[in-house]
């Protein structure tokens, strides 16, 4: 885990959630912009995951390895699942799904950071 990148990813997740929540309330969701934002977040998460796995290979021992790996995998699959759901959907509920996904990514990234630290 690159601490600064993980923190930025968590903040980006919250930002995405806030933007999508406003879009859901207004009923005006730009799904293309949503996909772009999700894609940017996904790239940051992928870079962080590569750094994470490299650290593990080099001998880092996280506090809770199994839990940490679960969080890492979940953080990577949320984006693609949600992207497939909101594609070509400018509706209120697509925006709500994006908002929930942004929050979920933020929570999962923070938990992954916590479990990354050595015992």
């Amino acid at each position: 885990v690159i601490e600064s990148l993980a923190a930025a990813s968590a903040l980006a997740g919250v930002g995405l959630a806030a933007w999508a929540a406003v879009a859901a309330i207004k009923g005006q969701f730009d799904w293309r912009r949503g996909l772009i934002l999700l894609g940017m977040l996904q790239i940051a998460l992928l870079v962080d995951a590569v750094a994470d796995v490299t650290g593990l290979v080099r001998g880092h021992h996280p506090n809770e390895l199994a839990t940490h790996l679960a969080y890492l995998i979940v953080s990577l699959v949320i984006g693609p699942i949600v992207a497939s759901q909101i594609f070509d959907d400018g509706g209120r509920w697509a925006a709500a799904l994006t908002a929930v996904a942004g929050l979920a990514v933020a929570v999962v990234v923070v938990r992954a950071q916590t479990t990354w630290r050595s015992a």
Partner: protein
Amino acid sequence: MTRARPPLGPGRLLVFGYGLFVVATGSRALVQLATHPGRAPLAYGLSAAAAGIYLAGLVLLGRFERHRRGWLTARALCLIELAGVVAVGSVSLLWPSSFPEPTVWSAYGSGYGFVPVVLPLLALWWLTTSEHRFGHAVPQKGDDERVERVRTFDREPVTARKDG
């Protein structure tokens, strides 16, 4: 490329939420039971049971969301889930020593931002207000408009259906 299905509804959001909780609670229970099962067997067992209920919720709500089948079963499961959260949450607050370590539903799911108590309530609301609640459509205000919207998304000429 065009979208070959109607716009998302609240059901898909709930299914996503249940999916997240299957992973979150399932992996938590699995790690706890695999690494130190003797430390708090009751709490870990309850977390595993919660994970099982979320998995069942995922399957049942997903089935209802896609095929409009299994309304009663899905509703019964949500009621069981809500009863579990309220019971475990109350016991954990009234008799804290019952659980040496917190369960998923301790303090009504405060460890998960109280989502565990909100999720079954939202699912029950959705199931209760669903226009297909008994496996067949119950006509509701604005139905014609909704059907029209779905047709537009299918990119299928409306006249073709009327004629054919």
